């Protein structure tokens, strides 16, 4: 399992991560980001892509 952390003070809800890892991140009806904090190792590549593409650099993978 990998742990996903999003700094919600930094996050501006641009939703760029949603496309990279749609099973981990989503924007809810209020335009706010929601995410799954613990995901399977098979999602690692997708979450890493989301980390890279976050405009606010708010996403981290905790080991």
């Amino acid at each position, binding site marked *: 399992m990998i742990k996903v952390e999003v700094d919600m003070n930094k996050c501006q809800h*641009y*939703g760029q991560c949603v*496309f990279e890892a749609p099973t981990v991140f989503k*924007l809810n009806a209020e*335009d706010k980001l929601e995410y799954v904090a613990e995901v399977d190792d098979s999602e690692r590549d997708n979450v890493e892509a989301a980390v890279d*593409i976050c*405009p*606010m*650099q708010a996403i981290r993978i905790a080991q």
Partner: protein
Amino acid sequence: MSAPVVIVGGSLAGLRSAEGLRRAGYAGPIKVIGNEPYLPYNRPPLSKELLSGTGDIDEIYFPIKESVADVEWVLGKAATSLDIQEQKVTDLSGTSHPYRALVIATGLRPKPLPVDANGISGIHVLRTFDDAVALRKQLLPGVKVLILGAGFIGCEVAATAVKAGCQVKVVARTHEPMQEALGKTLGREVKRRHELMGVEFVKGASVFGLIGDGHVERVILDSGVIYDADLVVVAIGSLPNTEWLEGSGIDISNGVLVDGGLRAVSSNGTLVENVFAVGDVARYVNPLFDQVPRRVEHWNLPTETGKRAGLILGKYLNGESIAEMLAEPFAPLPSFWSDQYDMHILAFGMTYLADRSELVAGEISGECVFEYFRNDKLVGVCGIGMRPTIQSYRTKFLLP
């Protein structure tokens, strides 16, 4: 010991290229030569959070991943020339850097004031952290700010300056702000919201001259109108940093022309061996839209181009076949966003190729979504708020 892969350009695209090389399994030396004195940092906050606050560069550095911890950074040294026969880059201090392969990631710089400032101070641009620090010190209550250009940077600076209590005028070449990207209808709405906050828009093509005793006091537009100004922000677009490539044989007619594998193309149309270009400086075909090579200055593309170039080059240097990767079309979906006041603009695609736009959801005075068409084919989507709806369009841009 073989020469390193040299990446010229120490910003996001350069960093992603280095990461891509490592991801492909290339374990040899990598050297990055950067013009700025800083490690790679994130630019979007420069016109927003960093411009309104007191934040330091520590807050916007990109994390340096373990895989690229051994990269050699040569910072504060612009590259001045390239010799593709000798395979070396020369920097400002005259040092030459031999390379095994080269990645060009020198990006853009702001277009300067179109007239000679004659030594008058108070003229700003916004591209680097140092630019942001110089500008934010001056954004004080009551200061008269004149912004040349009503694109993204111009509008974001206007919003930040108004919030700081400045009196803001924006001189726009187009009728509406951000008109090229948003179209007239949405552009007009953006203008209305800026005007509600106190920003004044002036239609004007360019600047004729400056008046001031040491520091700028007044600006003469080429229409002959004169405005008082304590500071001027020049936000009229950017130029690719390719002067150092002159005489190298590479096609630099508008940025660096590359093929779908981000490999540089020479002026006679052949591939240049071992040279790639990525990020804002690269000009390439995006088959999602058409066959016209373009430079696209959106934030997600340095990552998309850098990653791909790094992967292809890394595999190639390892002696692996790159035919399969090259056969895969390079068709990244551009995305842009902008925050001004409580207005959150988000877009996918190439809205500025459109010949018409259509409101498809919400209300223009509140939250809304527009579709953009060229010859009745969807080329972009953009809106204010309603981000889940805009997101859902990502899958609608398909390869022909």
